[in-house]
C-alpha cells in the first residue's frame, strides 16, 4: 500500500523513459513491454523523475491543473500503484525527497485522469537485443564500475 509520505522514483536500472509533447513513453527493459502515459499523467511522470514524495506530487498536480486535492490524491496514488506493479518505479520510506516540484506558470490546465497504457507487441523483438539488465550488472560488477 503506497502512502503519501513515500518517495517515488523511476526504476532507472530497469526503465528507459522519455517525455514527448507531454506524453511519457516508458520501456521496461527487462520485460520488453512499453507504456504510454499521456497528458496529466505525463506531467506526473516528470515529477516521478524528480524523486518527490507522493504528497508533493499531489500538491503539484492540484496546483497545475483544474482538479480538487481529493481527486488528485486518489489518481496519483492509483497511478503510483500501477507503475509500481509494473516495476517502473521504486518506493522509499523514511527518506527526504531530494527534488523540488516546479511552480505553476499561468492559469491551471484542463485536467485529464492519468492513465497507464501498456503494449507488449515489441516484447519478442526486444527479448534478445539488448540483453537483460541483470546481465549488464554482472558485466559492470566484473569491471568494478558502478552502473
Amino acid at each position, binding site marked *: 500500500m503506497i502512502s503519501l509520505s513515500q518517495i517515488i522514483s523511476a526504476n532507472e536500472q530497469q526503465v528507459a523513459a522519455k517525455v514527448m509533447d507531454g506524453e511519457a513513453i516508458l520501456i521496461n527493459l527487462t520485460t520488453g513491454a512499453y507504456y504510454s502515459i499521456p497528458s496529466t499523467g505525463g506531467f506526473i511522470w516528470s515529477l516521478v523523475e524528480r524523486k518527490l514524495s507522493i504528497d508533493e506530487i499531489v500538491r503539484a498536480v492540484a496546483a497545475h491543473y483544474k482538479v480538487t486535492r481529493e481527486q488528485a490524491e486518489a489518481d496519483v496514488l492509483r497511478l503510483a500503484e500501477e507503475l509500481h506493479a509494473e516495476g517502473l518505479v521504486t518506493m522509499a520510506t523514511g527518506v527526504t525527497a531530494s527534488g523540488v516540484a516546479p511552480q505553476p506558470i499561468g492559469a491551471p490546465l484542463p485536467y485529464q485522469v492519468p492513465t497507464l497504457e501498456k503494449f507488449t507487441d*515489441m516484447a519478442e523483438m526486444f527479448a534478445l537485443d539488448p540483453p537483460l539488465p541483470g546481465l549488464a550488472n554482472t558485466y559492470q560488477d566484473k569491471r568494478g564500475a558502478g552502473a
Partner: protein
Amino acid sequence: MHTSISCVVPVYNGARFIAEALDSILVQSLLPTEIIVVDDGSNDATAEVVKRYAAHVTYVRQDNAGPASARNHGIALASGDFLAFLDADDLWHKDKLARQLTALESNSGAGICISHVQNFWVEELAHERERMRDQPFAQPMPGYVCQCLLARRTMFDSVGKFDETKRVGEDVDWFMRADRAGILKVIVAELLVYRRIHQQNMSYELFHSQKARGDMLDLVISNLHNRRIQQNK
C-alpha cells in the same frame, strides 16, 4: 536452378570465437556460395585467425564503424540471391541454411525467414547461466536478430540497409521496417542458432548508455506512432 547464398560475418575483436563461428558455417548441410568476413577495425588477432580460412572466406577490413555498418559493407559485396548473417561469437546448427531456404522456397510470397535462437553462456559466466536457468532469456525463442535471418537479397532494396546510426537494436529496427513494408516472414520454429553470452558482448557495455536507451525509445515511439496511424485509418 542453383540457389546462391551469401553469408556475411561482421567481427570486431572476435579472435577468441570466430573460428567456431566459421566452422559452424563450413559444416552446413547446405553450404553458402560465399562467406564474407567484414573486420570492423579489430585490434586483436582476428585477421590471423581468419587467414586460416582463406580458402573459404573473403576477408575485408574497414575502420571501426559498428556492426550495422559492417553488415552493410558485407551486403554491398555479396553476390548471392539470399543473404544470411552470423556474428563472430555465435553458432549455427548444421541445418540452419537448409531449413530456412526450404521454408522460403516453399513460401514464395515470403521475403524473410527467421529461426529460433537460444542463448548460452561462456564458462566464466557459469554463475549467470545458473541464475538465468529458468528465465525466458535462457529458453529458445524466435530470434529477431541477424544471426537468425535468411533474406532474399531483394529485401535489402525494398526495406533498405541497417541503420548505421544505431548502436543497439539495429536488427529490431530493420525487422520493424520490414513489417511496415509489408514483407511477409516465415518463422521456422526450430532451434537453429546459438547465441553466446560473454563479457565482451557489445550490448553489455552499451546497455547503460543513454544512447542505447535513446535508440530503444526511438524504436518504441516510432512503433507507437505507426500503431496510431493504423488505428485512425
